[in-house]
């Protein structure tokens, strides 16, 4: 199934801003992060469709996963 992955700040380096990838049923954000070789400690904020996401939740067709490293405040 198709999952949209949006990456921000330093996570874009060597990976790009936005990817649309085909993943097997049952994939979780944790699985996506592993697939993209993002070290878990670099994941500070994880959103699924703009809502707080969990690493182990089951994703559905067409979901958008947004991943941020530690970032600022303002």
């Amino acid at each position, binding site marked *: 199934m198709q999952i949209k992955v949006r990456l921000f700040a*330093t996570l874009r380096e060597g990976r790009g801003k936005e990817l649309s990838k085909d993943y097997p049923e049952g994939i979780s954000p944790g699985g996506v992060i592993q697939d993209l070789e993002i070290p878990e400690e670099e994941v*500070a904020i994880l*959103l699924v469709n*703009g*809502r*707080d996401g969990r690493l182990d939740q089951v994703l559905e067709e067409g979901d958008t996963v947004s991943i941020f490293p*530690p*970032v*600022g*405040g303002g």
Partner: protein
Amino acid sequence: MYGYHGKYLRINLTEGTVKVEKLDLDLAKKWIGGRGLGTKFFVDEVDPKVDALSPENKLIAVTGPMTGTTAPTGGRYMVVTKSPLTGTIASSNSGGYWGAELKFAGYDMIIVEGRSEKPVYVMIEDDKVEIRDASHVWGKVTSDATRTLMKEVPEKSRVMTIGPAGEKQSLMAAVMNEESRAAGRSGVGAVMGSKNLKAVTVRGTQKVAVSDEAGLKEVIKTCNTKIRENGVTGQGLPAYGTAVLVNIINENGAFPTNNFQSSQFATAEQISGELMAEKYLVKKDPCYRCPIACGRYTKVDDIEGGGPEYETIWAFGGDCGVDDMGAIIKANYWCNEMGLDTISTGTTIAAAMELKQKGLLDGEDLGGLPLEFGSAEAIVEWTKKIGMREGLGDKMADGSYRLCDAFGVPELSMSVKKQELPAYDPRGIQGQGLSYATSNRGGCHVRGYMISPEILGLPEKLDRFALEDKAPWTKIFQDFTAFIDSSGLCLFTSFAMGAPDYAALFNAIVGTDLDGNGVLEAGERIYNLERVFNLEAGITPSEDTLPKRLLEDAIAEGPSKGFVNELSKMLPEYYQLRGWGTDGVPSKERKDQLGV
């Protein structure tokens, strides 16, 4: 005498006199410095009902005990006065170098009273203090005034000045230092302008004595390690500045767009921190002794300078529907030159755009300028018009509340207590709404930055839509912030440092034995003092609210779809935790307990 010099300047512009006065050290320790100490002096000396732009109002520029020391980010000062925008107590913080330099000159603060008949500036060089004619710099923009004065004051002086907006008493006028650092909010620049005071230059050669040199070194080492190892202060802010928030807040669907008519901006990527770093960043622009260095220095066409911050990018960008980063950088530049608060200026333009959209500006003289959402030209040109009070810019210069009120629609002003809200839609971030509503200086994010737990997950992640626990978190953040704002350090250190760290710094510098709880208690004392002043000034608890749009109109689309802010479900618990009674008034017991 450690941390404090124990003396301050009282400058009376009506009489043209300068006096050095002694600071009561017990009083200083109780009220810490900066926001706390400045407010204490102000409350004791000024009638809360004073007209903010009259000679009877006072303007206090006050440092903290950590200002000018070796503590990380110890360069901050506060401008405390009564705000002409909100009618509340105002305290606007600024970084850069001016605050530290005042300390080097041997003063903990300056109190400015009265009104000069002609434009003047104050020159401070250690013990030498002079009130000088400023007619040759009156009318000059910030950079020109700063550079002109630098030629006639001692070398290495630091310049705090107002721009044309302050001279013309725009209620959104800032006090600027080092050209691009601003004590931005609440119209403090208008108060300076009303006194005919253009600038205060300062040069000092003294050191700030500290109680325990060796101990302080150790504490600073620990704090610096925390700052370095924390993801936000060690990586995020240094790499992208605050602008990195654009994408985060927008992804959450809490990025107010077109004057809060929607909450997600389709082309936010065009004005993101990532894009700024790629295309416009020249270098970092840090404040005094700052290991974080969030400050940016950018260039577009023939314009270059400090900024823009996240709040600025949002105010001129998403809130005005503009996705042209070059134009935002120019608008930011003109805010600095005019001496304008970027949040209030951008959002007032956004409010005017909605007036135009709704057909309410018919017949107003727009001087041929566009005022449509999305117009890059509008944000730059209207900023200049506001600074000079030209055309409709004259009405806009008094902020969005007075502007919208003049057209019979005050509810289109996205403000609290008449001060414009910043860059987070509280319908999608519930606790931030409570923090906005109860901020002692009106619409403001840095009086209790609930974005930290609700979005960034620091120190722990809260559900941004949940209502429970938002009252206690807001209270703690507000009290903690009041202490930091009084210490002389930058609020951004708090992403990495906790209350015990500030206590340890305070103790090593001042020679006290405060603990983490003492930090929060001192902060709570300050918060209550401000509250009492506001009540006496006639600001009633009914103003602890949000614009109707945010309470009644649910967000129509995006990840925060369907939500309004549920303020009424959080406010009673908040009052109770504060010991304020159901009417929002601090009880006598609470005031006595805190020593207010």
